[in-house]
């Protein structure tokens, strides 16, 4: 996920330390199998041991917290890190589980109905956060 790569690059710039970056697919840990249609698995790629390390989970938007809960289960199945911290670009509130971020880019109050999408230069051609109102039915 590009945000994690950008963070790692920034840290290398500031600090000189190169941190390993991996991708975590949490499809197999979701709690809503059968409710959202065909599960699409993009694959987990963490080519290093996380044992005894501090792992920073990076997500673009923190919302209900369910994705992060699944990610925590997934990480713990892969090994035993010393600590797991959460960095999110946008925290839009409406938590349904007791999950709190350690690092936040911006707090963005939203209504539950709205959607928040983070667009990144590498994938979408621009760096932008878009809040969308759902269309009236």
């Amino acid at each position, binding site marked *: 996920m590009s945000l994690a790569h950008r963070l790692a690059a920034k840290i290398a710039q500031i600090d000189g330390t190169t941190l390993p970056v991996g991708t975590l697919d949490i499809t197999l*840990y979701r709690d809503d*199998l*059968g409710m959202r*249609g*065909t*599960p699409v*698995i993009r694959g*987990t790629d963490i080519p290093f041991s996380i044992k005894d390390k501090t792992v920073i989970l990076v997500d673009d938007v923190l919302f209900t917290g369910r994705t992060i809960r699944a990610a925590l289960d997934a990480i713990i199945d*892969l*090994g035993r890190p010393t600590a797991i911290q959460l960095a999110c670009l946008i925290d839009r509130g409406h938590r349904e589980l007791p999950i709190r971020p350690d690092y936040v880019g911006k707090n963005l109050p939203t209504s539950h109905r709205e959607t928040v999408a983070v667009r990144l230069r590498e994938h979408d051609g621009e760096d932008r956060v878009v809040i969308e109102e759902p269309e009236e039915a």
Partner: protein
Amino acid sequence: MGWTRKDLLTMRELEAGEIVLLVDTAASLQEIATREIKKVPALRGKTVVNLFYEASTRTRTSFEIAGKWLSADVVNFSASGSSTSKGESFIDTAKNIGAMSPDVVVVRHSSAGAAELLARALPCSIVNAGDGAHEHPTQALLDLLTIREKKGHFEGLHVAIVGDIAHSRVARSNIHGMRKLGMTVTVAGPPTLIPPFVQELGAKVSYRLEDAIGDVDVIMMLRLQQERMTAGLIPSLREYAHYWGLTLDKLARHARPDVLIMHPGPVNRGIELAPEVADGPYSVILDQVSRGVAVRMGVLLLLAGRKGGDGG
């Protein structure tokens, strides 16, 4: 393309996009086998029943591991021998199991059409693990996954399937799957073991091993069963092995150096495959087995994960 079917019964009814989805899903699940804790919670709380009427430890174990790695509760139901003469009929057994509300039933039976019957009788998902000589879709899928991994693509590949085609569900499922993905298939064997009108399924026919294996990308050897001899289909295993068995020598003289040797197992060493070939550098037989677990995980996941799924 998403997955919407309640069951996986045949390769024949699948569209190319569905086959690719199954293969892709399986490919991305392979890494679970490399983890220290081989478990993901995706099918937690789901019940998978293995209903095997034909003895088959390998395939059943493969499905069992697949289910367990996905955290499903897997139950094995072995009904041996003929159902109607020894008590409960197939339909009765099916209804009884259905009454226990499984989410998926994986069925292997010696009668063609058995999986379809189950799919009509039960509201849960049915996976055909082999119905008589009809189809064995998960075998074809793992064969396709293995081929794509080794060759990088499907389109344009030429596969030779050699052996008792007439009685082979593996051959039928593979012919359907491969044709849909743009591959060419040649079936080869003695004429008594090639079913009539097999060309209508899209396969070419050859009666000589040497002709069939020249210039193909994959040679898939099928197991020859003893019963074929007593049924008067071939005179002896010895003659079969001599004319249609694959040896290193025949490979060297006729096949391409980059050919893959495949076999659904178990191998009759010395009959259809010489031991040196089965264990040799061209063979991907063990790769097939490990792909089998991944494919079966993919199938269970897609069936349980379809919208409004699990019989609800």
